[in-house]
């Protein structure tokens, strides 16, 4: 009898285990609008990104979340400067800006079984000489540190 209970229990737990994720990001896309407020000033709307890390599903001593621009922000051959895209955040996440061809650390903390949640408030800076739509992709990367 006991021989059957364990496999059945395992089968029941598999769907729950599959649902659990170490890293969750919401939403999967953000849109920032640049509006000139005066002749030399541009104002950006804000974009919100929620990050959730379940450290129960991690090994090692520390976690680290980084961002990497994997598809540059482009429009008809023109590129929007990665550095002009920045975010503000509360600890354990940090306020920074994107960098081209470089992984930027967003936050780091201990793997202690707790769930870590944070919000990055995005803004775009600089000026755009023409009415365009720049599209790009950032990868949110979760690492375990030994």
């Amino acid at each position, binding site marked *: 009898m006991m021989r059957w209970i364990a496999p059945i229990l395992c089968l029941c737990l598999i769907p729950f285990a599959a649902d659990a*994720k*170490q*890293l*969750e*990001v919401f939403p*999967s*896309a*953000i*849109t*920032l*609008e*640049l*509006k*000139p407020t*005066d*002749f030399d000033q541009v104002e950006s709307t804000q*974009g919100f*990104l929620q990050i959730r890390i379940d450290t129960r599903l*991690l090994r*090692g001593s520390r976690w*680290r979340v980084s*961002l990497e621009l*994997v598809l540059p*922000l482009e429009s008809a051959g023109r590129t*929007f400067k990665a550095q002009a*895209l920045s975010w503000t955040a509360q600890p354990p996440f940090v306020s920074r800006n994107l960098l081209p061809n470089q992984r930027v650390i967003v936050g780091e903390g201990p793997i202690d079984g707790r769930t870590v949640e944070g919000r990055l408030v*995005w803004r*775009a800076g600089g000026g*755009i*000489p*023409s*009415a*365009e*739509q*720049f*599209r*790009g*992709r*950032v*990868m*949110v*990367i*979760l*690492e*375990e*540190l*030994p």
Partner: protein
Amino acid sequence: MRKSARTRIRVLARCRRVPALGLLACLLACPVDLSAQGRVVAQEPLDIVILAASHLNLRIGTSGSTIDVVSFTVNQLPGTGAVAGVSSGADPVPVRASSTPSGATKILTANSSTPLTSAGNTIPFTQISWTGAGGVPSGTFTGSPSQQIWTGTQSLGAGAAMSFSYANTVYVSPGTYTGRVTYTLSSP
């Protein structure tokens, strides 16, 4: 033939050294603190869209909600010469016009259809002219609701300005006459 074979051998020998040198270089370049190296366990994509809307900017006179007043103090007989105006803001009155996209055609118009009034008496805006600078052409108000003042694809920036004057060619009843001209920037 022999020479080329020797060369090939030499090249191969050099190639063999490359991995060893590369490994050495890598070891030297590696940071000492190996605990900083992490193992990627999850990745989530985030798409980013940046929109820049089409926009027109216009400023005549002082920035913000202030409406500049250009005053003409007439203490000479009609027909004895024009009277220069004095602005409550910067003088001459600065004009700035720009657009996003920057090369768009822009049209600056003025509505001077409502004459200046004082206790039931009027002075038509056709009595008022301006001298343009920095790309703004000179002209005289026509009293129409959409008189074209300027058009262009470039921007009107530093140096663009207007100096106003009152023709003083007709007799009018004494008084303080006030009126307003409204400028509009549009793009077809």
